[in-house]
């Protein structure tokens, strides 16, 4: 067994000097790959945030040159919106939540020295980086970036004569396809590692919830993305080789793409949701000093959500011209999915009961996730009900719904995770006071922006329109648009606090002990930051991850690796 072959444990190697390139660029160490994913994701996040700034300025002050960008043409507006959505989902949420946290946490939480296939892991990152580069290049090619929305419905996306972005559409699609393949490789690695390389003694129900969630998310991604990869190949051929898969004039069908896209698209929203739910589970148990309420129920609920998520896709297509009778089926399945998600929310709230809660920065982020995601979740019900979706489809109500889910998941989830694991990643503590300023400076504007957008959405404002003042019925909401934009600028301003705190603490923050939060999971038994190979002697697990406040023990926590 593993622990009887210590001969080539990494930690046992004498520390030889490694070059800059093999340490930072071509590293196969899971922690370094996690950092690569995270920093690439954050960089892309800044681009996505910048795009949001530019197009929101255009909406608030149409026709006025945007400081830091200039005049926004209709074509540019479409490209900005499209790439904002694409980047935020595929190049921020996925790499940061799934790949960065997954890579960092899985080996550490399972008590092993690395992923099972370190070189495939590196390849996965390299493909991802390549995809990001292709995407960025696509903004600058003649004709401009792709502007057919992140959903890329054909025929618009299939024919250059319609989209007027011959190169942009193809590069966009190639980038997305590469990104999918990168995450397929990464996912295979995650799943195999979790199945096969747990610390001795770590049984199924001893796996920390965040690891479970990342694994389920990876499998969900794997199972749903295949058809879309096939669909993307067909779309690429339609664009470049003159086939007619999606061309109705020549025997194809544009709706086919919508099915393939949403068959992936809806599971995808849970792919990004699950890692954050996991992160939140870790944080609230630690700072409430509580065992996770009903671990097994949570686990099976997550499986249930994953399965159900394959049955709801056409709720995005109620009015797309599908057979109207189908809407009933998809309304039922969509509303059913409120059950497992409600279950998860109830469990998290129940976990707080009887706790001893300290509101540290990570805890604030984790709690604010629950508070805001609830709003995003319940507004999904209005859309899942086919009757109301006729009106709400493709309005800003949808937009506000999914920002109330995506923002908590991506931005809040990231901040929760990074403030919690920062000591482990960099060996130093973040500044709490700056952290709290940043928290309030982000969470208040966020709510103001998107509550406002719910209202304009109910007022009938549709998506992806670069100037609403030309619509007589919509011009009257201009004040609300300005309000949303002003608060966005404010929110972006507060991100400077975070970036400052982040880099300052990395260099000069207070030194962190191995286990500053008194947490149970295995990563806290390694040094901060963990060396190459993570432990000099790999740990053994003796119990589940959430044994807090166990009666009869002096300490109110009981780490997984402590015998007894």
């Amino acid at each position, binding site marked *: 067994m593993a622990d009887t072959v210590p001969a080539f444990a990494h930690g046992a190697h004498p520390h030889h000097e490694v070059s800059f390139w093999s340490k930072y660029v071509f590293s196969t160490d899971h922690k370094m790959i996690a950092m690569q994913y995270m920093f690439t994701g954050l960089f892309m996040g800044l681009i996505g945030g910048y795009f949001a700034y530019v197009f929101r300025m255009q909406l608030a002050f149409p026709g006025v040159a945007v400081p830091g960008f200039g005049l926004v043409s*209709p074509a540019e507006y*479409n490209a900005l919106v499209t790439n904002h959505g694409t980047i935020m989902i595929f190049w921020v949420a996925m790499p940061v939540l799934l790949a960065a946290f997954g890579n960092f946490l899985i080996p550490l939480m399972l008590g092993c020295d690395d992923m099972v296939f370190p070189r495939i892991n590196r390849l996965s990152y390299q493909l991802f980086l390549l995809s990001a580069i292709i995407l960025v290049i696509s903004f600058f090619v003649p004709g401009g970036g792709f502007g*057919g929305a992140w959903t890329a419905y054909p025929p*618009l996306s299939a024919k250059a004569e*319609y*989209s*007027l972005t011959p190169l942009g559409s193809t590069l966009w699609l190639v980038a997305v396809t590469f990104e999918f393949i990168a995450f397929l490789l990464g996912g295979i690695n995650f799943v195999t590692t979790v199945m096969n390389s747990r610390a001795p003694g770590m049984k199924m129900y001893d796996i920390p919830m965040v690891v479970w969630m990342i694994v389920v998310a990876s499998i969900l991604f794997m199972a749903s993305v295949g058809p879309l990869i096939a669909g993307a190949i067909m779309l690429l051929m339609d664009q470049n080789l003159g086939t007619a898969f999606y061309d*109705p004039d020549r025997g194809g069908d*544009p709706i086919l793409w919508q099915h393939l896209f949403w068959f992936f698209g809806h599971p995808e929203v849970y792919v990004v949701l699950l890692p954050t739910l996991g992160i939140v589970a870790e944080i609230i148990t630690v700072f409430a*000093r*509580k*065992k*996770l*309420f*009903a*671990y*097994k129920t949570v686990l099976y609920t997550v499986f249930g959500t994953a399965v159900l998520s394959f049955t709801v896709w056409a709720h995005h297509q*109620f*009015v797309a*011209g599908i057979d*109207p*009778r189908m*809407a009933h089926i998809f*309304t039922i399945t969509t*509303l059913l999915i*409120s059950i497992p998600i409600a*279950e998860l929310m*109830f469990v998290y709230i*129940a976990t*707080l*009961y*009887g706790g*001893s*809660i300290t*509101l540290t920065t990570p805890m604030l982020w984790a*709690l604010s996730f629950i508070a805001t995601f609830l709003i995003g979740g*319940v507004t999904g*019900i*209005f859309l*899942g*009900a086919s*009757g*109301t979706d*006729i*009106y709400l489809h493709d309005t800003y109500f949808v937009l506000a719904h999914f920002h109330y889910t995506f923002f908590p998941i991506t931005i809040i989830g990231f901040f929760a995770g990074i403030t919690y694991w920062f000591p482990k990643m960099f060996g130093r503590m973040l500044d709490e006071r700056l952290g709290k300023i940043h928290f309030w400076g982000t969470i208040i504007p966020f709510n103001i922006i998107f509550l406002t957008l719910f*209202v304009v959405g109910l007022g*009938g404002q549709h*998506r*992806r*329109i*670069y*100037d609403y003042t*030309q*619509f*007589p*019925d*919509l011009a009257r909401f201009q004040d609300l648009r300005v309000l949303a934009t002003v608060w966005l600028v404010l929110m972006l301003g507060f991100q400077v606090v975070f970036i400052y705190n982040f880099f300052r603490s990395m260099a000069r923050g207070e030194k962190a002990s191995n286990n500053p939060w008194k947490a149970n999971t295995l990563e806290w038994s390694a040094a901060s930051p963990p060396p190459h190979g993570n432990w000099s002697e790999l740990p053994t697990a003796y119990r589940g991850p959430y044994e807090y*406040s*166990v009666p009869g023990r002096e300490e*109110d926590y009981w780490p997984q690796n402590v015998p007894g």
Partner: protein
Amino acid sequence: MIESLVPAASSYAADIDALFTLIFVFVGFWLILCEGLFFWLIWRFRKKEGARGQYITGELKSETRWITYPHLLVLVCDLFIVVGAVKVWYDVKQYLPPAEETVRIVSQQWAWTFVHAGPDGLLGTTDDITKVNELHVQVDRTYHYKLESTDVLHSFSVPVFRLKQDAVPGRVITGWFRPTQAGEWDIQCAEICGIGHGLMGARIYIETPAQHAAWLMQESPISIAAVTRTRPAEE
């Protein structure tokens, strides 16, 4: 709820608004309950000197009850919402009342062409009135629309009707509406269709029978004289 922001001008607009209100009440109840409980727990169980957390696994029957019962209640709420949604959807999208008049709607990058039946009330005859970005309909008259697209996807959306339907190239999609309130409002294209998507608006003119007759007269003075039969203003 929605009427306070957008007038309701079709026969089914009120149903959709009512469904919205119904859902609002149900999920609003749960939202307030969850959030209220949540903030109360944070406050109630804040860290106090000397006090420890409790050890609750959440696996005992007496504990899971707190999840299971609310859960069943959510299921009940879901049922009500489903019934409401199915009913409204059926009326708007699946059921097709007989038409008193039909209008052809052709969408293309980036304009709407509306082919009105004209004075004889029949589509496809010589007195059809073709208008770009202007749809003229009459109050209290049931219309069928035949929606087409010549190039990419578009979406015919009339917020005051609460109506939306995508146009798919290669298909003719039939639906219906019945205006109930005279006035002039926006039609928008609700599906991204390229650079001009943001410009692809039109206006709907909902007219009283008298106004509508005047409009017909103005558009098609010759053929109106040729029409001998008087059209029923209302059914």
